[in-house]
């Protein structure tokens, strides 16, 4: 990065087809969330009940487990991008901002892993007896 002129500072930071990646990924995951979260809400409302057995039996179905996992990936990816922008807007100290985004990455990846593990456990153990 140049330290002199404006163009020198900008060079290397420009698009080159990568500049819009964050913006586009936020839109892709938004479409994913739109489909998958609406599916979750409609499914939950139409389930016979939300007791332990009904929920375990429902999640144990591969056609439920897979979209549920995809929903977690899409939601946590989307929130990681959105909260990054929020932190960049409000946390001005560079060091603190770095630390916050570090925590955000841990939160997004850790949260998604916990949820996906829970779904996998139910799916692989089969329906509740």
């Amino acid at each position, binding site marked *: 990065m140049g330290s002199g002129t404006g163009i020198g500072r900008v060079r290397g930071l420009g698009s080159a087809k990568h500049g819009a990646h964050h913006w586009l990924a936020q839109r892709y995951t938004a479409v994913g*969330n739109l489909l998958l979260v609406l599916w979750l809400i409609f499914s939950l*409302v139409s389930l016979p*009940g939300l007791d*332990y057995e009904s929920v375990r039996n429902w999640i144990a179905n591969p056609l439920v487990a897979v979209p549920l996992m995809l929903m977690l990936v899409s939601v946590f990816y989307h929130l990681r991008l*959105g909260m990054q922008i*929020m932190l960049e807007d409000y946390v001005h100290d560079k060091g603190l901002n770095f630390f916050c985004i570090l925590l955000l990455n841990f939160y997004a990846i850790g949260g998604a892993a*916990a949820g996906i593990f*829970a779904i996998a456990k139910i799916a692989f153990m089969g329906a509740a007896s």
Partner: protein
Amino acid sequence: MARTKSRPLSPHLTIWKWGPHMAISILHRITGNGLATVGILGVVWWLLAAATGPEAYARFIACATSPIGYLVMIGISWFFFQHMMSGLRHFVLDLGAGYELNVNKTWSMVIPALSTLATVALWATIFSGKI
């Protein structure tokens, strides 16, 4: 820096008159961050409880069906519909449409009303049903 410091800055937040388009913009951020924390953690808690066993699941249900639990769930569902619909508005704006002042203002006021209607419809369905 090639820029001179004497150039004018764009006007600051404090001198703008508040309008619906500003309210919906900040609401998008508030609802997004609410869903990103309380909303999704509730879903992950539900999944972990179901994966852990009947006792853990019963504890989750006890919290979720307490008065505070219902308040949080109803609030989060409004957050979801609001964020979803204002996200759809962003897709339209991304296409370069909907920037005319009256169109922008209208949708900024219609969307919170629609998300409130969707929330009412959802919970009316739930409370009238078997859950």
